[in-house]
């Protein structure tokens, strides 16, 4: 088989790596677990949060409408 210095370089780099591979593996695993946890939390509480936000926006809209009607009535009084 003919020589391929690119493949030799790859093996050289891999041999020099040492035990870092396991540390990286654990880091990736913990990251994945954390992302999964965030996903679960969102799945569990996400719909409720959306509902709360919707109700807040409804309340705000209603209060804005009320303010508008109040101000328009005030204006008529001024006139």
């Amino acid at each position: 088989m003919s020589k391929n210095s690119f493949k030799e370089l790859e093996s050289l780099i891999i041999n020099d790596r040492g035990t870092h591979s396991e540390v990286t593996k654990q880091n990736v695993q913990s990251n994945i677990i954390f992302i999964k946890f965030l996903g679960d939390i969102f799945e569990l509480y996400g719909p409720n949060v959306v509902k709360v936000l919707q109700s807040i926006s409804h309340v705000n809209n209603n209060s804005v409408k009320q303010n508008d009607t109040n101000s328009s009535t005030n204006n008529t009084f001024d006139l």
Partner: protein
Amino acid sequence: MIVNLLNPIVTHTSKKMMCDEEVVEQYLLTKNIHYFNLLYDRYTNKIYAKCVAMLKVEAKAEDATQEIFIKILLNLSKFTGKSKFSTWIYSITYNYCIDVIRKEVKENTVFVEDQLNIEIADDNCIENEMLEMNVHRLREVLKLMQVEDKSILLMKYQDDMSIKEICDVINKSESAVKMKILRAKERFLKIYRMEFKTSIQMV
């Protein structure tokens, strides 16, 4: 039996060696971390070696390997099986490294003009010279190359990717890829000459 129930991968591996696509399928179905470990063990060193060749610094390469694996796992559901799994993850690796290097403000590369004046009589001659080169010299030359040239040479000579596969990775036509490979080899030769003051045997 209890062990097998707790760890379903044992039953699979005892029957046969699972291919990458099967492991991906099982991971997506079960979200079992053992399947991730299988993929990690198969590809971590290859990905790390590519990151070292591209990013030059081992610590950066280790961080990049970590980020790339997270990216791979978050995007596993997007793997359609159109290309080989290895091609898919190598494309993520190369694109990630290219992005990292582009983000860095100044890249320490030798400036090579687009118009190359090297007279190359025989393309195979350069290829043989490259493949039989001393590994440490190869590493030095790769360090000085532009990231696009470096990645295309690694795809061709380290990963043995076909032209079609390289086309899929870099989203270019076959003729464009062939031209890019040729240009990369020419630039490689130029940097090699400049660094080591040797003349490659010309035909």
